Protein backbone atom coordinates (compact mmCIF):
# COMPACT_ATOMS: atom_id res chain seq x y z
CA UNK A 1 0.00 0.00 0.00
CA UNK A 2 1.33 3.40 -0.98
CA UNK A 3 1.45 5.93 1.82
CA UNK A 4 -0.10 9.15 0.59
CA UNK A 5 -0.38 12.35 2.58
CA UNK A 6 -1.49 15.94 2.02
CA UNK A 7 1.46 18.08 3.03
CA UNK A 8 3.06 21.51 2.81
CA UNK A 9 6.32 21.71 0.87
CA UNK A 10 8.19 22.65 4.03
CA UNK A 11 6.78 19.64 5.87
CA UNK A 12 7.56 17.34 2.96
CA UNK A 13 11.26 18.23 2.88
CA UNK A 14 11.42 17.61 6.65
CA UNK A 15 9.68 14.24 6.37
CA UNK A 16 11.88 13.46 3.37
CA UNK A 17 14.98 14.08 5.47
CA UNK A 18 13.75 11.83 8.29
CA UNK A 19 12.91 9.03 5.85
CA UNK A 20 16.22 9.42 4.01
CA UNK A 21 17.95 8.59 7.29
CA UNK A 22 19.16 12.06 8.28
CA UNK A 23 21.20 12.17 11.48
CA UNK A 24 20.68 15.78 12.45
CA UNK A 25 18.97 19.06 11.67
CA UNK A 26 20.07 22.47 12.96
CA UNK A 27 18.05 25.56 12.14
CA UNK A 28 16.67 28.94 13.09
CA UNK A 29 13.15 30.27 12.49
CA UNK A 30 12.49 32.51 9.51
CA UNK A 31 9.40 32.96 7.35
CA UNK A 32 8.46 31.31 5.00
CA UNK A 33 10.32 28.14 6.04
CA UNK A 34 9.65 27.83 9.78
CA UNK A 35 7.42 24.79 9.25
CA UNK A 36 10.52 22.71 8.50
CA UNK A 37 11.79 22.83 12.08
CA UNK A 38 8.26 23.01 13.56
CA UNK A 39 7.39 19.77 11.79
CA UNK A 40 10.63 18.12 12.90
CA UNK A 41 10.12 19.13 16.54
CA UNK A 42 6.55 17.85 16.48
CA UNK A 43 7.52 14.57 14.83
CA UNK A 44 10.14 13.69 17.50
CA UNK A 45 12.47 12.09 14.96
CA UNK A 46 14.76 11.14 17.84
CA UNK A 47 12.16 8.58 18.83
CA UNK A 48 11.49 7.52 15.24
CA UNK A 49 15.05 7.12 13.96
CA UNK A 50 17.47 8.65 16.44
CA UNK A 51 17.72 11.85 14.40
CA UNK A 52 18.79 14.94 16.38
CA UNK A 53 16.96 18.27 15.96
CA UNK A 54 18.27 21.46 17.56
CA UNK A 55 17.10 25.06 17.37
CA UNK A 56 20.22 27.21 17.16
CA UNK A 57 20.65 30.80 18.32
CA UNK A 58 21.16 32.08 14.76
CA UNK A 59 21.67 30.99 11.19
CA UNK A 60 25.37 31.56 11.75
CA UNK A 61 25.34 29.04 14.59
CA UNK A 62 23.15 26.63 12.55
CA UNK A 63 25.57 26.41 9.65
CA UNK A 64 28.52 25.96 11.99
CA UNK A 65 26.73 23.22 13.92
CA UNK A 66 26.14 21.63 10.53
CA UNK A 67 29.87 21.94 9.80
CA UNK A 68 30.79 20.21 13.06
CA UNK A 69 28.29 17.39 12.66
CA UNK A 70 29.06 16.89 8.95
CA UNK A 71 32.75 16.73 9.85
CA UNK A 72 32.01 13.59 11.84
CA UNK A 73 30.50 11.89 8.76
CA UNK A 74 26.85 12.41 9.69
CA UNK A 75 23.97 13.18 7.32
CA UNK A 76 22.91 16.69 8.25
CA UNK A 77 20.48 19.32 7.01
CA UNK A 78 19.58 22.93 7.68
CA UNK A 79 16.94 25.17 6.17
CA UNK A 80 16.35 28.87 6.03
CA UNK A 81 15.08 31.64 3.77
CA UNK A 82 17.01 34.27 1.84
CA UNK A 83 18.29 36.63 4.60
CA UNK A 84 19.20 33.62 6.74
CA UNK A 85 20.95 31.93 3.83
CA UNK A 86 22.94 35.13 3.30
CA UNK A 87 24.08 34.87 6.93
CA UNK A 88 25.18 31.29 6.33
CA UNK A 89 27.37 32.04 3.32
CA UNK A 90 30.65 32.10 5.23
CA UNK A 91 29.93 28.67 6.67
CA UNK A 92 28.78 27.31 3.29
CA UNK A 93 32.09 28.40 1.76
CA UNK A 94 33.96 26.69 4.63
CA UNK A 95 31.96 23.49 4.09
CA UNK A 96 32.66 23.52 0.35
CA UNK A 97 36.35 24.11 1.08
CA UNK A 98 36.51 21.40 3.74
CA UNK A 99 34.49 19.08 1.45
CA UNK A 100 31.66 18.43 3.86
CA UNK A 101 28.41 16.87 2.66
CA UNK A 102 25.13 18.43 3.78
CA UNK A 103 21.74 19.63 2.59
CA UNK A 104 20.88 23.33 2.68
CA UNK A 105 17.26 24.23 1.99
CA UNK A 106 16.57 27.79 0.85
CA UNK A 107 12.87 28.66 0.74
CA UNK A 108 13.45 31.88 -1.15
CA UNK A 109 11.60 35.10 -0.29
CA UNK A 110 11.74 38.50 -1.91
CA UNK A 111 14.72 40.77 -1.36
CA UNK A 112 17.03 42.57 -1.27
CA UNK A 113 17.51 43.12 2.45
CA UNK A 114 14.73 42.05 4.73
CA UNK A 115 12.58 42.36 1.60
CA UNK A 116 9.33 40.53 2.03
CA UNK A 117 8.10 37.17 3.24
CA UNK A 118 6.41 36.40 -0.07
CA UNK A 119 7.87 34.00 -2.68
CA UNK A 120 10.75 34.92 -4.96
CA UNK A 121 13.47 33.30 -7.05
CA UNK A 122 15.95 36.14 -6.81
CA UNK A 123 18.57 34.04 -4.98
CA UNK A 124 19.53 32.29 -8.24
CA UNK A 125 22.83 34.17 -8.52
CA UNK A 126 23.64 33.54 -4.86
CA UNK A 127 23.00 29.82 -5.23
CA UNK A 128 24.61 29.17 -8.60
CA UNK A 129 27.34 31.78 -8.90
CA UNK A 130 28.97 31.59 -5.51
CA UNK A 131 27.28 33.26 -2.59
CA UNK A 132 30.22 32.84 -0.26
CA UNK A 133 33.86 33.64 -0.98
CA UNK A 134 36.27 31.62 -3.08
CA UNK A 135 35.99 29.25 -6.05
CA UNK A 136 33.34 26.73 -5.21
CA UNK A 137 30.05 25.37 -6.50
CA UNK A 138 26.94 24.05 -4.85
CA UNK A 139 24.91 21.28 -6.41
CA UNK A 140 21.55 23.05 -6.63
CA UNK A 141 18.24 21.19 -6.92
CA UNK A 142 15.06 23.13 -7.71
CA UNK A 143 11.88 21.25 -6.77
CA UNK A 144 8.67 22.26 -8.56
CA UNK A 145 6.22 20.30 -6.44
CA UNK A 146 5.65 19.20 -2.87
CA UNK A 147 6.45 15.66 -4.02
CA UNK A 148 9.86 16.81 -5.18
CA UNK A 149 10.42 18.60 -1.88
CA UNK A 150 10.09 15.16 -0.31
CA UNK A 151 12.09 13.28 -2.95
CA UNK A 152 14.97 15.75 -3.17
CA UNK A 153 15.91 15.28 0.49
CA UNK A 154 16.95 11.71 -0.32
CA UNK A 155 18.49 12.71 -3.65
CA UNK A 156 20.30 15.56 -1.93
CA UNK A 157 21.99 13.29 0.61
CA UNK A 158 22.93 10.87 -2.16
CA UNK A 159 24.65 13.59 -4.18
CA UNK A 160 26.19 15.30 -1.13
CA UNK A 161 27.91 12.09 -0.05
CA UNK A 162 28.78 10.93 -3.55
CA UNK A 163 30.80 14.10 -4.12
CA UNK A 164 31.42 15.17 -0.49
CA UNK A 165 30.01 18.61 -1.10
CA UNK A 166 27.08 20.75 0.10
CA UNK A 167 23.81 20.43 -1.83
CA UNK A 168 21.37 23.32 -1.97
CA UNK A 169 17.67 22.65 -2.41
CA UNK A 170 16.56 26.00 -3.76
CA UNK A 171 12.83 26.33 -3.59
CA UNK A 172 10.59 29.30 -2.94
CA UNK A 173 7.88 30.46 -0.61
CA UNK A 174 5.20 29.17 -2.97
CA UNK A 175 6.43 25.57 -3.09
CA UNK A 176 7.29 25.71 0.62
CA UNK A 177 3.86 26.89 1.71
CA UNK A 178 1.50 25.17 -0.72
CA UNK A 179 -0.12 21.82 0.04
CA UNK A 180 -0.17 18.89 -2.36
CA UNK A 181 -0.52 15.17 -2.35
CA UNK A 182 2.74 13.40 -1.57
CA UNK A 183 3.58 9.76 -2.01
CA UNK A 184 5.94 8.87 0.82
CA UNK A 185 8.73 6.37 0.36
CA UNK A 186 9.68 3.94 3.08
CA UNK A 187 11.83 4.84 6.05
CA UNK A 188 15.52 4.21 5.46
CA UNK A 189 17.62 3.35 8.48
CA UNK A 190 20.20 5.87 9.59
CA UNK A 191 23.64 4.77 8.50
CA UNK A 192 25.66 4.08 11.63
CA UNK A 193 28.42 2.10 9.94
CA UNK A 194 29.99 4.45 7.42
CA UNK A 195 33.29 5.48 5.87
CA UNK A 196 35.13 7.19 8.68
CA UNK A 197 38.43 7.42 6.84
CA UNK A 198 38.13 11.19 6.56
CA UNK A 199 35.73 12.00 9.39
CA UNK A 200 36.71 13.23 12.84
CA UNK A 201 35.38 10.52 15.14
CA UNK A 202 38.41 10.16 17.42
CA UNK A 203 41.92 9.10 16.44
CA UNK A 204 42.52 5.39 16.77
CA UNK A 205 46.01 3.78 16.84
CA UNK A 206 45.53 2.31 13.36
CA UNK A 207 45.28 5.60 11.53
CA UNK A 208 46.74 9.12 11.41
CA UNK A 209 44.74 12.01 12.85
CA UNK A 210 41.83 13.29 10.76
CA UNK A 211 41.50 17.03 10.41
CA UNK A 212 38.54 18.92 8.99
CA UNK A 213 39.61 22.33 7.76
CA UNK A 214 39.47 24.62 4.76
CA UNK A 215 42.76 26.28 5.72
CA UNK A 216 46.14 25.65 4.13
CA UNK A 217 48.62 28.47 4.43
CA UNK A 218 50.94 26.85 1.88
CA UNK A 219 49.81 28.45 -1.39
CA UNK A 220 51.06 25.66 -3.63
CA UNK A 221 49.09 23.09 -1.62
CA UNK A 222 46.05 25.38 -1.49
CA UNK A 223 46.21 25.66 -5.27
CA UNK A 224 46.36 21.88 -5.56
CA UNK A 225 43.29 21.67 -3.30
CA UNK A 226 41.49 24.15 -5.57
CA UNK A 227 42.43 22.10 -8.63
CA UNK A 228 41.05 19.02 -6.90
CA UNK A 229 37.78 20.86 -6.13
CA UNK A 230 37.44 22.08 -9.72
CA UNK A 231 37.98 18.55 -11.01
CA UNK A 232 35.23 17.34 -8.72
CA UNK A 233 32.86 20.10 -9.89
CA UNK A 234 33.59 19.14 -13.51
CA UNK A 235 32.67 15.56 -12.67
CA UNK A 236 29.39 16.81 -11.19
CA UNK A 237 28.75 18.93 -14.29
CA UNK A 238 29.40 15.91 -16.53
CA UNK A 239 27.16 13.51 -14.62
CA UNK A 240 24.47 15.23 -12.59
CA UNK A 241 22.55 17.52 -14.95
CA UNK A 242 18.84 17.09 -14.45
CA UNK A 243 15.99 18.71 -16.38
CA UNK A 244 12.59 17.92 -17.82
CA UNK A 245 10.50 19.10 -20.72
CA UNK A 246 6.75 19.55 -21.03
CA UNK A 247 4.80 19.85 -24.30
CA UNK A 248 8.03 20.60 -26.09
CA UNK A 249 7.94 18.03 -28.94
CA UNK A 250 6.05 20.20 -31.42
CA UNK A 251 6.81 23.52 -29.71
CA UNK A 252 7.69 26.63 -31.70
CA UNK A 253 8.40 28.59 -28.53
CA UNK A 254 9.81 27.60 -25.17
CA UNK A 255 9.37 28.78 -21.65
CA UNK A 256 12.47 28.13 -19.57
CA UNK A 257 11.55 28.11 -15.90
CA UNK A 258 12.22 26.23 -12.65
CA UNK A 259 10.42 25.83 -9.33
CA UNK A 260 7.06 27.56 -8.94
CA UNK A 261 7.56 29.51 -12.19
CA UNK A 262 7.67 26.19 -14.06
CA UNK A 263 4.25 25.35 -12.63
CA UNK A 264 2.86 28.72 -13.68
CA UNK A 265 4.29 28.18 -17.17
CA UNK A 266 2.50 24.84 -17.44
CA UNK A 267 -0.81 26.65 -17.03
CA UNK A 268 0.33 29.35 -19.48
CA UNK A 269 1.08 26.60 -22.01
CA UNK A 270 -2.47 25.31 -21.62
CA UNK A 271 -3.85 28.81 -22.23
CA UNK A 272 -1.48 29.38 -25.16
CA UNK A 273 -2.25 26.11 -26.87
CA UNK A 274 -5.97 26.83 -26.58
CA UNK A 275 -5.20 29.94 -28.66
CA UNK A 276 -3.11 27.93 -31.14
CA UNK A 277 0.32 28.99 -29.85
CA UNK A 278 2.63 25.99 -29.86
CA UNK A 279 4.62 26.60 -26.70
CA UNK A 280 6.42 24.14 -24.44
CA UNK A 281 8.50 24.17 -21.27
CA UNK A 282 12.12 23.41 -20.58
CA UNK A 283 12.60 23.07 -16.84
CA UNK A 284 16.08 22.90 -15.30
CA UNK A 285 15.94 20.66 -12.20
CA UNK A 286 19.59 21.24 -11.37
CA UNK A 287 20.27 24.98 -11.37
CA UNK A 288 23.92 24.03 -11.03
CA UNK A 289 25.07 22.17 -12.98
CA UNK A 290 22.84 24.02 -15.47
CA UNK A 291 21.59 21.91 -18.42
CA UNK A 292 23.64 23.88 -20.96
CA UNK A 293 23.93 21.29 -23.74
CA UNK A 294 20.37 20.09 -23.31
CA UNK A 295 18.92 23.58 -23.48
CA UNK A 296 21.06 24.39 -26.51
CA UNK A 297 19.64 21.33 -28.30
CA UNK A 298 16.07 22.19 -27.32
CA UNK A 299 16.52 25.81 -28.36
CA UNK A 300 17.67 24.78 -31.85
CA UNK A 301 14.14 23.53 -32.57
CA UNK A 302 12.23 26.71 -31.59
CA UNK A 303 11.86 30.31 -32.72
CA UNK A 304 12.24 31.97 -29.35
CA UNK A 305 12.59 31.52 -25.60
CA UNK A 306 10.97 33.30 -22.67
CA UNK A 307 12.81 32.73 -19.40
CA UNK A 308 10.31 33.10 -16.57
CA UNK A 309 11.68 33.70 -13.09
CA UNK A 310 10.47 35.65 -10.07
CA UNK A 311 13.45 37.99 -10.31
CA UNK A 312 14.78 40.91 -12.34
CA UNK A 313 16.35 38.39 -14.71
CA UNK A 314 19.04 36.14 -13.27
CA UNK A 315 18.65 32.71 -14.92
CA UNK A 316 18.29 34.42 -18.32
CA UNK A 317 22.08 34.87 -18.24
CA UNK A 318 22.55 31.09 -18.23
CA UNK A 319 19.91 30.72 -20.96
CA UNK A 320 21.93 33.11 -23.12
CA UNK A 321 25.15 31.28 -22.29
CA UNK A 322 23.57 27.93 -23.13
CA UNK A 323 22.13 29.13 -26.43
CA UNK A 324 25.24 31.20 -27.19
CA UNK A 325 22.86 34.10 -27.92
CA UNK A 326 21.89 32.40 -31.19
CA UNK A 327 18.18 32.60 -30.48
CA UNK A 328 15.85 35.32 -29.31
CA UNK A 329 15.59 34.98 -25.54
CA UNK A 330 13.98 37.39 -23.11
CA UNK A 331 13.25 37.45 -19.42
CA UNK A 332 9.88 37.90 -17.81
CA UNK A 333 9.31 38.03 -14.09
CA UNK A 334 7.75 39.79 -11.17
CA UNK A 335 9.73 40.90 -8.13
CA UNK A 336 9.40 41.66 -4.45
CA UNK A 337 7.17 38.70 -3.70
CA UNK A 338 4.70 39.24 -6.54
CA UNK A 339 3.75 36.01 -8.32
CA UNK A 340 3.08 36.23 -12.07
CA UNK A 341 -0.24 34.87 -13.32
CA UNK A 342 -0.34 32.41 -16.26
CA UNK A 343 -2.13 35.10 -18.29
CA UNK A 344 0.68 37.58 -17.66
CA UNK A 345 3.26 34.99 -18.66
CA UNK A 346 1.45 34.18 -21.91
CA UNK A 347 1.04 37.87 -22.71
CA UNK A 348 4.77 38.38 -22.15
CA UNK A 349 5.50 35.54 -24.59
CA UNK A 350 3.21 37.11 -27.17
CA UNK A 351 4.60 40.63 -26.74
CA UNK A 352 8.29 39.96 -26.15
CA UNK A 353 8.93 36.87 -28.27
CA UNK A 354 6.19 36.14 -30.81
CA UNK A 355 5.33 39.71 -31.68
CA UNK A 356 8.67 41.17 -30.67
CA UNK A 357 11.37 42.16 -33.09
Amino acid at each position, binding site marked *: MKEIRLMKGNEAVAEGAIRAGADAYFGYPITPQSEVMEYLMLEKPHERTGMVVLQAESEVASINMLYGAAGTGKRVMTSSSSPGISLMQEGISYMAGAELPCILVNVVRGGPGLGTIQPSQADYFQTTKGGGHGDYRLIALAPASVQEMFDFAGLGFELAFKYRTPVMIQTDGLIGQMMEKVELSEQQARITEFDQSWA*TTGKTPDRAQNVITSLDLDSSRQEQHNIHLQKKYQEVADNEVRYETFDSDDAEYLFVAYGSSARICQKAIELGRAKGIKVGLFRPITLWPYPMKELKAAAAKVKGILAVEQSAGQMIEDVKLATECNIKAEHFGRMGGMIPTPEEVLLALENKIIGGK
Partner: protein
Amino acid sequence: MDIKDIIKPENLVYKKTDHMTDKVLSYCPGCGHGTAHRILMEVIDEMGVRADTIGVAPVGCSVLAYDFMNIDMQGAAHGRAPAVATGIKRCWPDKFVFTYQGDGDLAAIGTAETIHACNRGENITILFINNGIYGMTGGQMAPTTLEGMRTTTSPYGRDLESMGNPIKITELIANLPGVHYVTRQAVHTPRYVRRTKKAIFKAFDIQKNKKGLSFVEIVSNCNSGWKMTPNQSNIWMEDNMFPYYPLGDIKVDGKIINE
Protein backbone atom coordinates in the same frame (compact mmCIF):
# COMPACT_ATOMS: atom_id res chain seq x y z
CA MET B 1 80.08 12.05 33.45
CA ASP B 2 79.10 11.69 29.82
CA ILE B 3 75.62 12.82 28.78
CA LYS B 4 74.88 9.31 27.49
CA ASP B 5 75.20 8.03 31.04
CA ILE B 6 72.39 10.35 32.06
CA ILE B 7 69.97 9.77 29.15
CA LYS B 8 68.84 6.26 30.02
CA PRO B 9 65.30 4.88 30.31
CA GLU B 10 65.68 4.33 34.06
CA ASN B 11 66.54 8.00 34.54
CA LEU B 12 63.50 9.20 32.62
CA VAL B 13 61.26 11.28 34.86
CA TYR B 14 59.29 13.25 32.27
CA LYS B 15 58.65 12.83 28.56
CA LYS B 16 56.65 14.45 25.84
CA THR B 17 53.31 12.76 25.25
CA ASP B 18 52.87 11.24 21.80
CA HIS B 19 49.55 13.08 21.70
CA MET B 20 51.68 16.07 20.66
CA THR B 21 53.09 15.87 17.13
CA ASP B 22 56.79 16.45 16.43
CA LYS B 23 56.08 19.63 14.47
CA VAL B 24 57.84 22.79 15.62
CA LEU B 25 55.35 25.03 17.42
CA SER B 26 54.43 28.15 15.47
CA TYR B 27 54.07 30.16 18.69
CA CYS B 28 56.50 32.85 19.73
CA PRO B 29 59.14 31.69 22.24
CA GLY B 30 57.85 32.53 25.70
CA CYS B 31 54.14 32.24 24.80
CA GLY B 32 51.88 30.16 27.04
CA HIS B 33 50.09 28.34 24.19
CA GLY B 34 52.69 25.56 23.98
CA THR B 35 52.32 24.70 27.65
CA ALA B 36 48.53 24.85 27.45
CA HIS B 37 48.58 22.52 24.40
CA ARG B 38 50.84 20.08 26.15
CA ILE B 39 48.92 19.72 29.40
CA LEU B 40 45.68 19.36 27.47
CA MET B 41 47.19 16.53 25.43
CA GLU B 42 48.64 14.99 28.61
CA VAL B 43 45.17 14.89 30.15
CA ILE B 44 43.74 13.13 27.07
CA ASP B 45 46.69 10.73 27.10
CA GLU B 46 46.47 9.97 30.81
CA MET B 47 42.69 9.47 30.62
CA GLY B 48 43.23 7.19 27.60
CA VAL B 49 40.44 8.85 25.61
CA ARG B 50 42.13 9.87 22.35
CA ALA B 51 39.97 7.49 20.30
CA ASP B 52 36.90 9.25 21.72
CA THR B 53 38.07 12.85 21.57
CA ILE B 54 37.38 15.50 18.93
CA GLY B 55 38.87 18.96 19.36
CA VAL B 56 37.86 22.22 17.72
CA ALA B 57 40.51 24.80 16.81
CA PRO B 58 39.62 28.50 16.53
CA VAL B 59 40.85 31.32 14.35
CA GLY B 60 43.68 33.16 16.04
CA CYS B 61 47.19 32.17 17.09
CA SER B 62 46.02 28.60 17.71
CA VAL B 63 44.36 28.27 14.28
CA LEU B 64 46.86 25.49 13.53
CA ALA B 65 46.40 23.71 16.88
CA TYR B 66 45.70 20.49 14.96
CA ASP B 67 49.25 20.62 13.60
CA PHE B 68 50.51 20.17 17.16
CA MET B 69 47.75 18.18 18.84
CA ASN B 70 47.89 14.65 17.46
CA ILE B 71 44.17 13.98 17.73
CA ASP B 72 41.12 14.30 15.45
CA MET B 73 40.26 17.98 15.11
CA GLN B 74 38.16 20.44 13.18
CA GLY B 75 39.11 24.00 12.33
CA ALA B 76 36.18 26.33 12.98
CA ALA B 77 35.35 29.68 11.41
CA HIS B 78 36.27 32.68 13.58
CA GLY B 79 34.24 32.58 16.81
CA ARG B 80 32.11 29.59 15.85
CA ALA B 81 33.95 26.83 17.72
CA PRO B 82 31.20 26.33 20.34
CA ALA B 83 28.62 25.89 17.54
CA VAL B 84 30.89 23.43 15.73
CA ALA B 85 31.45 21.57 19.00
CA THR B 86 27.68 21.52 19.58
CA GLY B 87 27.15 19.91 16.18
CA ILE B 88 29.74 17.24 16.95
CA LYS B 89 28.55 16.55 20.50
CA ARG B 90 24.86 16.31 19.59
CA CYS B 91 25.71 13.60 17.07
CA TRP B 92 28.24 11.84 19.32
CA PRO B 93 27.06 12.40 22.90
CA ASP B 94 29.52 9.85 24.29
CA LYS B 95 32.62 11.43 22.75
CA PHE B 96 34.78 14.06 24.46
CA VAL B 97 34.52 17.37 22.61
CA PHE B 98 36.50 20.50 23.44
CA THR B 99 37.12 23.91 21.94
CA TYR B 100 40.39 25.80 22.32
CA GLN B 101 39.81 29.52 21.81
CA GLY B 102 41.46 32.86 22.31
CA ASP B 103 39.86 36.01 23.70
CA GLY B 104 39.03 37.61 20.35
CA ASP B 105 37.50 34.39 19.09
CA LEU B 106 35.51 33.59 22.24
CA ALA B 107 34.64 36.97 23.70
CA ALA B 108 34.25 39.24 20.64
CA ILE B 109 33.18 37.68 17.35
CA GLY B 110 31.98 34.45 18.99
CA THR B 111 30.14 35.90 21.98
CA ALA B 112 26.73 34.64 20.85
CA GLU B 113 27.97 31.10 20.21
CA THR B 114 29.84 31.07 23.55
CA ILE B 115 26.87 32.26 25.59
CA HIS B 116 24.32 30.01 23.90
CA ALA B 117 26.46 26.86 24.03
CA CYS B 118 26.97 27.60 27.74
CA ASN B 119 23.30 28.36 28.26
CA ARG B 120 22.21 25.11 26.62
CA GLY B 121 24.60 23.32 28.94
CA GLU B 122 26.31 21.54 26.07
CA ASN B 123 28.39 18.71 27.47
CA ILE B 124 31.62 20.12 26.12
CA THR B 125 34.77 21.67 27.53
CA ILE B 126 35.80 25.16 26.52
CA LEU B 127 39.45 26.14 26.99
CA PHE B 128 39.76 29.89 26.88
CA ILE B 129 43.21 31.40 26.47
CA ASN B 130 43.03 35.04 27.53
CA ASN B 131 46.04 37.20 26.76
CA GLY B 132 44.17 40.46 26.26
CA ILE B 133 45.27 40.98 22.68
CA TYR B 134 44.87 39.77 19.09
CA GLY B 135 48.22 38.03 18.71
CA MET B 136 48.09 36.53 15.25
CA THR B 137 46.99 39.65 13.40
CA GLY B 138 49.74 41.66 15.03
CA GLY B 139 48.63 42.92 18.41
CA GLN B 140 45.30 44.71 18.05
CA MET B 141 42.95 45.56 20.93
CA ALA B 142 40.92 42.58 22.18
CA PRO B 143 37.67 42.54 24.17
CA THR B 144 39.78 41.64 27.22
CA THR B 145 42.46 44.31 26.72
CA LEU B 146 42.95 46.14 30.02
CA GLU B 147 42.28 49.83 30.60
CA GLY B 148 45.15 51.94 29.38
CA MET B 149 46.84 49.00 27.65
CA ARG B 150 48.58 49.98 24.42
CA THR B 151 47.87 47.89 21.33
CA THR B 152 48.15 48.69 17.62
CA THR B 153 44.48 49.76 17.55
CA SER B 154 44.65 51.50 20.94
CA PRO B 155 48.05 53.13 20.44
CA TYR B 156 47.40 55.68 23.22
CA GLY B 157 46.04 53.05 25.59
CA ARG B 158 42.53 51.60 25.87
CA ASP B 159 40.16 54.43 26.65
CA LEU B 160 37.13 53.03 28.44
CA GLU B 161 34.84 55.86 27.44
CA SER B 162 35.29 55.37 23.72
CA MET B 163 36.44 51.73 23.53
CA GLY B 164 34.40 50.07 26.20
CA ASN B 165 35.44 47.97 29.17
CA PRO B 166 37.51 44.78 29.22
CA ILE B 167 34.89 42.05 29.31
CA LYS B 168 34.82 39.47 32.10
CA ILE B 169 33.14 36.84 29.95
CA THR B 170 34.08 34.06 32.36
CA GLU B 171 32.14 35.61 35.24
CA LEU B 172 29.29 36.27 32.81
CA ILE B 173 28.91 32.68 31.66
CA ALA B 174 29.35 31.35 35.22
CA ASN B 175 25.88 32.75 35.91
CA LEU B 176 24.26 30.50 33.32
CA PRO B 177 22.55 27.40 34.74
CA GLY B 178 23.88 25.09 31.99
CA VAL B 179 27.45 25.71 33.09
CA HIS B 180 28.73 23.25 35.70
CA TYR B 181 32.34 24.23 36.28
CA VAL B 182 34.19 27.50 35.70
CA THR B 183 37.75 28.18 36.71
CA ARG B 184 40.47 30.71 35.86
CA GLN B 185 44.06 29.50 35.85
CA ALA B 186 47.50 30.29 34.43
CA VAL B 187 50.47 28.39 32.99
CA HIS B 188 53.41 30.71 33.71
CA THR B 189 54.85 28.85 36.72
CA PRO B 190 55.16 25.11 37.48
CA ARG B 191 52.67 25.51 40.32
CA TYR B 192 50.04 26.96 38.04
CA VAL B 193 50.78 24.49 35.26
CA ARG B 194 49.96 21.68 37.71
CA ARG B 195 46.81 23.46 38.91
CA THR B 196 45.62 24.09 35.35
CA LYS B 197 46.22 20.48 34.37
CA LYS B 198 44.15 19.40 37.36
CA ALA B 199 41.39 21.78 36.24
CA ILE B 200 41.40 20.30 32.72
CA PHE B 201 41.17 16.81 34.24
CA LYS B 202 38.17 17.95 36.24
CA ALA B 203 36.59 19.52 33.17
CA PHE B 204 36.90 16.30 31.16
CA ASP B 205 35.58 14.31 34.10
CA ILE B 206 32.49 16.53 34.19
CA GLN B 207 32.02 15.88 30.47
CA LYS B 208 32.34 12.15 31.06
CA ASN B 209 29.60 12.32 33.68
CA LYS B 210 27.44 14.52 31.44
CA LYS B 211 26.97 17.23 34.04
CA GLY B 212 27.05 20.21 31.69
CA LEU B 213 29.53 22.62 30.27
CA SER B 214 32.99 22.98 31.79
CA PHE B 215 34.97 26.16 31.17
CA VAL B 216 38.65 26.63 31.88
CA GLU B 217 40.11 30.09 31.33
CA ILE B 218 43.89 30.34 31.17
CA VAL B 219 45.19 33.87 31.61
CA SER B 220 48.30 33.92 29.50
CA ASN B 221 50.97 36.23 28.21
CA CYS B 222 51.64 37.59 24.75
CA ASN B 223 55.20 38.82 25.00
CA SER B 224 55.34 39.70 21.29
CA GLY B 225 52.05 41.61 21.27
CA TRP B 226 52.80 43.27 24.61
CA LYS B 227 56.28 44.21 23.34
CA MET B 228 58.08 42.66 26.31
CA THR B 229 60.55 39.89 26.99
CA PRO B 230 58.92 36.64 28.06
CA ASN B 231 59.95 37.19 31.68
CA GLN B 232 58.80 40.82 31.70
CA SER B 233 55.49 39.74 30.24
CA ASN B 234 54.91 37.20 32.99
CA ILE B 235 55.67 39.77 35.68
CA TRP B 236 53.41 42.30 33.93
CA MET B 237 50.69 39.66 33.74
CA GLU B 238 50.90 39.00 37.50
CA ASP B 239 50.86 42.73 38.28
CA ASN B 240 48.14 43.79 35.86
CA MET B 241 46.11 40.89 34.43
CA PHE B 242 45.62 38.86 37.62
CA PRO B 243 44.12 41.73 39.67
CA TYR B 244 41.44 42.26 36.97
CA TYR B 245 41.12 38.56 36.11
CA PRO B 246 41.69 36.89 39.50
CA LEU B 247 42.77 33.25 39.42
CA GLY B 248 40.84 30.43 41.06
CA ASP B 249 37.58 28.55 40.82
CA ILE B 250 34.52 30.63 39.97
CA LYS B 251 31.87 27.91 39.83
CA VAL B 252 32.15 24.37 41.15
CA ASP B 253 29.49 21.65 41.03
CA GLY B 254 27.09 24.12 39.45
CA LYS B 255 27.44 26.59 42.35
CA ILE B 256 29.10 30.00 42.19
CA ILE B 257 31.92 30.30 44.72
CA ASN B 258 31.37 33.35 46.92
CA GLU B 259 34.48 35.11 48.10
